[in-house]
């Protein structure tokens, strides 16, 4: 998985609680991305980062925030988890915008 780890790998939480997912890379890549994967929707971009403290929204950003204080870490926060945010979350990295995106192993999140 190209030097990408995600934590936790599995999480069960309750509606209304905040949740933070972590993506850690050892490749020193500039670009990092958060996607969610749902049946029938493929993968959809939530947020991405093009450098430390530089982030932007993707196509499904409502209810999510991100932070990147170090090159190697990209955090995704669900401010108040809802059942519609039950999904598998993938982090991806790339060295430049036009390069291959390498995906992490995913985090399976269940919001009850």
């Amino acid at each position, binding site marked *: *998985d190209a030097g*990408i780890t995600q934590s936790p790998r599995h999480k069960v939480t309750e509606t209304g609680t905040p949740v933070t997912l972590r993506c850690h890379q050892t490749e020193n890549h500039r*670009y990092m991305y958060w996607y969610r994967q749902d049946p*029938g*929707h*493929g*993968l*959809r*971009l939530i947020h*991405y980062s093009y450098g430390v403290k530089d982030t932007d929204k*993707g*196509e499904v950003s409502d209810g999510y925030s991100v932070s990147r204080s170090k090159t190697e870490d990209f955090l995704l926060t669900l401010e108040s988890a809802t059942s519609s945010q039950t999904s598998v979350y*993938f982090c*991806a990295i*790339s060295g*430049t*915008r*036009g*390069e*291959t*995106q*390498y*995906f*992490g*192993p*995913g985090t399976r999140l269940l919001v009850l």
Partner: protein
Amino acid sequence: QQQVKQSPQSLIVQKGGIPIINCAYENTAFDYFPWYQQFPGKGPALLIAIRPDVSEKKEGRFTISFNKSAKQFSLHIMDSQPGDSATYFCAASKNQGGKLIFGQGTELSVKP
């Protein structure tokens, strides 16, 4: 609005067959078209990618055919093997990479 439409949702072929997965896109600004392969419990991995200046690209048993005028592209897997059984996603982006828009995915099963 689904900007990249992928079909079929699922596909079953016999070993040695040639499965074909099709994708259609709407945004003529897209200029990078990758295909990703995903095995259960793993993150997607880049299989092959094409840019619109060529009509076909081959890498081993995998071929992308691209029809710019029809805004369609497809993945062909020659001499398919049971180990090719996976979910395949097409994707598209503009400005030569970055924010990928994924198709819905095709679950391929290759029977021995």
